[in-house]
């Protein structure tokens, strides 16, 4: 054995800290239209390169190019734009509500709206969604009432979750939207289980799960890929790589040495990496994965490359750990602007109509939120009775909870 020098520990560090000038030129990317589109039934081993390239459809001039162009009707694109604008307006509004003390907490999805909106629209109504807290766009794209969402955030008397959950931890069975867990990653394997059940029953509905880049480090991520591969579950497994997990950059989840899409390779699954701010690319990739699932070909892992433009939550101050203007250097732009530009480029939209739609979205949100505020906000107005606190721990309340409810005076 030759003598070796002392070992040392590699500590991953994001490239830019507050005060530094960001430069994303080494982001692994591909030219719009460049990446090939395999058949959905092609063996995963034949297109591993897709886990490291970046599916993109929208080009710089607003054109839609290449084999992944989903060729959506303009009507549908405008609907997508509307959902994204609503999502953004809702986020803005609720964040302001938090600053005004009407709620204790809020989490925005700013800059990532295409992920949830395009994916919801690419799936069928009956497909079951297992989201994280940053896919409010799924609910909006499924026409879930913003009023209902705001009531949850306010924990008021109309809140379907009876004031039990932290703001934004929605649940909407009728919308096929699974109850959000505060414990990261747990939903990923649950989505696979649901999909297994659908296959078990000979159903045609598929499942989709979302997870953040940071949360991929949890065991549930590995469970999901393992069960998905072993039983070929009809599920779409989405990693939303928005670069950050609170203050931790994605290198701390292994993003320095490999893409998240490439995790699929070791399980024999297809992994696709897609420009998460490209509404068309996200749509196309999701449709492709859904078709695979529906044809009983099993799961697809999709890495959606995007950027968390806002703070992690209202409790966070990102300027403490990343350059305050880092987002403006993000090379994949803003999903709303890019879809708008595309629609204008193809003659299906105008700056005026856009301004009008954005204003309408804000009004719609404002009206719904006001209505919710009239019911109650955190700390004032109508809320559920504290007696309801003892319901739903079990299907039928056992004696000890009845006794405790009585202790509380009900």
């Amino acid at each position, binding site marked *: 054995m030759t003598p070796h020098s002392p070992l040392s520990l590699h500590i991953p560090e994001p490239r830019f800290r507050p005060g530094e000038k960001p430069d994303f030129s080494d982001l692994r990317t591909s030219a719009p239209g460049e990446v090939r589109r395999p058949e959905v039934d092609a063996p995963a081993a034949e297109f591993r390169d897709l886990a490291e390239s970046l599916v993109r459809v929208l080009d710089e001039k607003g054109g839609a190019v290449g084999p992944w162009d989903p060729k959506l009707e303009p009507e549908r694109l405008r609907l997508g734009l509307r959902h994204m604008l609503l999502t953004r307006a809702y986020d803005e509004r609720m964040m302001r509500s938090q600053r005004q003390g009407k709620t204790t907490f809020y989490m925005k999805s700013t800059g990532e709206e295409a992920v949830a909106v395009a994916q919801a629209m690419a799936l069928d109504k009956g497909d079951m969604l297992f989201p994280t807290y940053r896919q409010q766009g799924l609910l909006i794209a499924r026409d879930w009432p913003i009023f209902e969402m705001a009531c949850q955030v306010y924990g008021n008397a109309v809140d379907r979750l009876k004031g039990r*959950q932290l703001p934004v931890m929605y649940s909407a069975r009728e919308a096929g939207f*699974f109850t959000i867990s505060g414990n990261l990653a747990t939903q990923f394997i*649950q989505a696979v289980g649901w999909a*297994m059940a659908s296959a078990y029953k000979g159903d045609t509905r598929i499942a989709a799960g979302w997870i953040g880049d940071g949360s991929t480090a949890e065991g549930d991520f590995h469970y999901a890929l393992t069960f998905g591969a072993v039983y070929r579950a009809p599920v779409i497994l989405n990693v939303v790589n928005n670069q950050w997990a609170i203050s931790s950059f994605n290198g701390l989840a292994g993003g320095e040495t490999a893409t998240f899409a490439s995790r699929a390779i070791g399980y024999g699954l297809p992994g696709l990496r897609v420009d998460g701010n490209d509404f068309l690319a996200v749509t196309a990739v999701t449709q492709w994965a859904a078709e695979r699932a529906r044809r009983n070909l099993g799961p697809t892992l999709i890495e959606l490359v995007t950027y968390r433009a806002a703070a992690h939550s209202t409790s966070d101050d990102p300027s403490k750990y990343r350059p305050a203007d880092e987002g403006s250097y993000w090379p994949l732009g803003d999903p709303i602007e890019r879809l708008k530009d595309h629609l204008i480029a193809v003659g299906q939209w105008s700056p005026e109509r856009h301004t009008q739609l954005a204003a309408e979205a804000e009004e719609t949100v404002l009206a719904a939120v006001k209505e919710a505020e009239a019911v109650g906000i955190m700390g004032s107005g109508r809320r559920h009775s504290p007696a309801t606190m003892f319901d739903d*721990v*079990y*299907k039928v309340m*056992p004696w000890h909870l009845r006794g405790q409810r009585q202790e509380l005076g009900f």
Partner: protein
Amino acid sequence: MSQMNMAQALNSAMDVMLGRDPDVLVMGEDVGYFGGVFRCTDGLQRKYGARRVLDTPLTEGGIVGAALGMGVYGLRPVVEIQFADYAYPAFDQLASEAARLRYRSAGEFWAPLTVRTPYGGGIFGGQTHSQSPEALFTHVCGLKTVIPSNPYDAKGLLIASIEDDDPIIFLEPKRLYAGPFDGHHDRAAASWAGHPLSEVPQDHYSVPLGKAAVVREGGGVTVLAYGTMVHVALAAAEETGVDAEVIDLRTLVPVDLETIAASVAKTGRCVVVHEATRTGGYGAELAALVQEHCFYALEAPIARVTGWDTPYPYAFEWDYFPGPKRIGEALVRTMDARA
């Protein structure tokens, strides 16, 4: 009626439920083709196919997480964790998810999981095949915890658990699979044959959750036990001649306080026994409850006879096990205590 040991009775419960309800499925490590390391699922895959009786990857967290998603869909998964000692990797999915789904979604979502798992010592399993972790589950609201002590109850309670819409932790005293065990490890192993509670109906029946059974009536002291310890407590009562009333709790959460309190009101004395480590064990909850509800009837401190606060040591299994001698001494001590 047929004569069954506990493993067979559990098998029969799953058989009945697989037969009645197409949404019931059985899953776990080695439960399918092989029939389970304790043979509890023997023959079920042959009868119902690999789709209904699934071998799974070796990952308890994954198994419970996937089963939970299936439960949300509408199935009734019956999960086997090969040993209760291996439930910990699934603890997050059980405590944060299974137990809270219904609550956090205000009744929109739930998962009617049954998690079966063998627990307890007496088979020289060493520290990672002998644990009794029931107290970790009884502290988690939203879970129900069930422990049978004989074939008849095992089948009836398991069917009740599978039919229940709440998530259930179903702990099986592995030392009782093949026969009752009174703690006299130096005597020949007993078989269930001839035991009245090994006469088990072949068809569907259930034993209600939340109801204890008085397995021995007595006026001097109440003994609270479950699982293997029921038999050991009975032996201790017989051998000491103490006039003990022995209660088999059967369900730990929700516990049958009414039966317990009625007995202690009568006897004025109470001994709690379990195999789990003492500190923070379920016996602490029982002692707390009994003194809360029967304080003025109590004539002696409530005694706890339990496993020691150490891991279960392989070569000292019988020094660790709270056998009839230790229980008997506690009975006598409790009877002798001045009022």
